[in-house]
């Protein structure tokens, strides 16, 4: 199972026939296993990593440190849910250290993101403080270098 997941995490578009050959199993077995992994919510979704900058699409990404007052019974979870349900919120992590939640927000403009933080995020009950950092440039995301200049420099035939 781990081998299959490792192959898919690097390239979810691999044909089943190719996966089957690489894993030394039948196509049917691989298909069944993928379906099972999806049902079990081990595979949650298949995403595409896009360098939006190259398409001329402007997006603004803000990384926000959020401090909370934990609630009796639910701790941080209920407040976290109130935050992560917003479509604007891409990522939410519970953190150790000087703040509690790391929230990543994407919007079309600085104004839109700032507005969201001020009116929706900071006003949630239990949120005591927010500190926003705007992302200037993505060098590497999910293990992929955004503009990798390294190329295959090998000769076509070597011993």
């Amino acid at each position, binding site marked *: 199972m781990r*081998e299959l997941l490792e*192959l898919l995490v690097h390239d979810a578009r691999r044909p089943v026939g190719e996966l089957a050959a*690489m894993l030394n199993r039948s196509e049917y077995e691989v298909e069944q296993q993928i379906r099972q992994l999806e049902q079990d919510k081990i595979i949650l979704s298949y995403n595409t990593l896009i360098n939006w900058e190259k398409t001329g699409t402007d997006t603004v990404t803000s990384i926000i440190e959020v401090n909370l007052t934990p609630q009796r019974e639910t701790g941080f979870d209920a407040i976290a849910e109130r935050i992560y349900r917003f479509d604007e919120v891409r990522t939410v992590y519970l953190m150790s250290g000087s703040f509690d939640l790391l929230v990543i927000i994407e919007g079309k403009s600085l104004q839109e993101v700032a507005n969201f933080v001020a009116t929706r995020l900071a006003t949630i009950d239990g949120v005591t403080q927010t500190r926003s950092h705007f992302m200037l440039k993505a060098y590497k995301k999910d293990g992929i270098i955004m503009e990798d200049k390294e190329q*295959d420099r090998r000769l*076509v*035939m*070597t*011993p």
Partner: protein
Amino acid sequence: MTVREKNEKIDWSKRISPVVHAVPPSGIRRFFDIAAEMEDVISLGVGEPDFVTPWSIRESCVYGLEQGYTSYTANRGMLELREEICALQKRNFNIDYEPKTDVLVTVGVSEALDIAMRTILTVGDEILIPEPCYVSYKACAALAGAKPVPVPAKIENNFSITPADLEAHVTDRTKALLIGYPNNPTGAILTREQLLDIAKFAIKHDLIVISDEIYGDLTYGGAKHTCFAGLPEMRDRTILLNGFSKAYAMTGWRIGYALSNPDIIAAMTKIHQYTMLCAPITAQIAAVEALRHGEKYMKKMVSEYDKRRRLIYDGLTNAGLKCFEPKGAFYIFPDITVTGLTSEEFAEQILLKEHVALVPGNAFGDCGEGYVRCSYATSVAKISEAIARIEHFVQQRK
């Protein structure tokens, strides 16, 4: 007549040593020029990893340069590196080597191979070389003045070699045996039992064994590499050659090493010090980092090769070519006789018609005729496309 015109009339080729003259150029580069000019060529002809050297190794070299490490090192190599090399042999194979006397750091295994031959062979000596094998083996023996004696390995025996095969070629002039497993070009490995038989043969005929284990880290499907020098009584009889090119994706750094008894290493060091002086210090620094922290990167690369190996074995078999399932290195050696073509015709036609570059099997010895070498050290997408093109080519000729 001008000096230039006079010079043009002289046949300089007659001034080349007959020993060098007799050595043929490497057959691997035969189609290089055509392939190099094609734009959409997919190359399965490359004998090196498609990975770039792991960053931590590259970074350590950059740091070393910043710190001013630009000098010569000891002839035998930096002691730090020799200690790491010996520790590796102890860790992996439980062989004891003394860093001060039993190891020599060389400019790739290629140099180690050359000086090992020059150290133990002289004019008239014979060295047994199982084929198909790496292109340098026979040439280095010939350049050392000795006679290379090829011992053909057969696909029926999974390209392995037995004492009986060797016995058929041994004479009273046989001084050494050169083995290279996991094998380039077949991907064959030898089991511990098979190697034990070869060890007995070496003792019986009192031979030195040069064991090129550059692909030792690259074995698959549960097959485990046995180090020849780790077999009983073989440590001192063996010149063990290894390096960093294949396992750590460090081909261009040119760094390898030889391990043996102190006498042989001292003699090899003599040639090394007069010809090479020392391996580049930059590469030695990088090699130390590779041995200290590189194993996890190496394991990841090996696991990636394994998946590609299964893909290409499956693909070529389905394309109608009989294949021995490789157990090590990153090559597969399909039998192409079903097409009615020779190795060279196959390699040339598939390059011209399908734009797939691979190496004709006869480049690795006469018994490689009827096969071609495909390297799977290339991306999965390229392997898949190459398989489709090979299948198209083979189906038209069946």
